[in-house]
C-alpha cells in the first residue's frame, strides 16, 4: 500500500521533471524557460515529500524541501536580474538573440 502510493507519488514528479525539461529546452523566451526550470524543481519537491511520507518522516527530506524552495527563489531572482540586464543592453528577451553574452 505504502509502496504503491510512493510509486504513484514518484511518477508524477517524473512527469513534471520531463515537462519542465521540455519547456526549458524548447522555449525561446527567457521567462518561459524559467517556468520550465520551476516545474523541474516543483517535481523534486513532490518527490522529496513522497519520500518523507513513505520513509518514516526522515528530517533530511524536509530539509531538502527547504533547500529546493530556496533554490527556486534564488533562480527566479538571478534569472530575472540577468534577463533585465540583457534587455537593457540589447532590447532582446529571446535566447536565440542572446547567444553571445560578452559585452
Amino acid at each position: 500500500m505504502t509502496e504503491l502510493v510512493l510509486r504513484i507519488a514518484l511518477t508524477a514528479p517524473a512527469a513534471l521533471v520531463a515537462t519542465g525539461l521540455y519547456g526549458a529546452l524548447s522555449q525561446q523566451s527567457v521567462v518561459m524557460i524559467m517556468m520550465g526550470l520551476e516545474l523541474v524543481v516543483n517535481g523534486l519537491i513532490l518527490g522529496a515529500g513522497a519520500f518523507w511520507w513513505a520513509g518514516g518522516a526522515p528530517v533530511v527530506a524536509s530539509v531538502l524541501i527547504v533547500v529546493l524552495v530556496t533554490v527556486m527563489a534564488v533562480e527566479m531572482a538571478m534569472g530575472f536580474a540577468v534577463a533585465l540586464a540583457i534587455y537593457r543592453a540589447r532590447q532582446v528577451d529571446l535566447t536565440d538573440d542572446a547567444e553571445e553574452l560578452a559585452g
Partner: protein
Amino acid sequence: MIALVSALGAVAVVTGLLVFTADSMARATFLLLGSFVAVAVVLIGFGLGYLGTVVILMMTIEMMIMVVFMVMLMMNPAGLMPMTMVHNRRGSWAIALVVFGLLTAGVWLVPFPVRAGAATGGVTSGPAAGPDATVALGDALMGGQMLTMMTLGLALLATIVGTVAVAVSRREGRAERRGIS
C-alpha cells in the same frame, strides 16, 4: 491516500503541460501556479503542513512577481496573437520523453524498502507518532543541519547583492532614484 495523490499528481502534471501550450502569458503563469498549489496540497496531505503552506505562500508571491516581468519583457502578454515561441521542438520532446521513460521505469522497477510496520499498518504510513514535523524541521535546521542553513543564508545574501548589482542600470543615478521617493 492513493486517490488524493493520483488526482493531485495528475492535476500538477496537466497544468504543467498546459503552461507550454497556453497562448497567453497570464494564463501560463497561473497554470504554473496551479501546478504548484496541487503539489503543496499533496504535501499537506502527507502531513507536512508547514512546508505545504509555505510552498503555497511563496509560489503565489513568486508568480505575482513573474507577472510583472512577463508584461515587461514579453512581446505578447495578452494572448492577442497565437504564441508559439519554440525552437527545436522535436528534439526537446524526444529528450523529455526519454527522461520521463527512464525515471518512470526506475520508479516502478526499483524495489523500495518498506518501513517496518508500514506494511501491516495499512493506509496511513506517513509520519510516525513522534515530534511535530514542524518542530523536527526547526530542530534540524538549527542543529544537525546548521551547515545547510548557513549555506542557504549565504546563498541568499549573495543573490541579493548579485541581483542588485546586475539589475541596476549604470546610467541610473542616485539622484534619479531619490526623485521617485
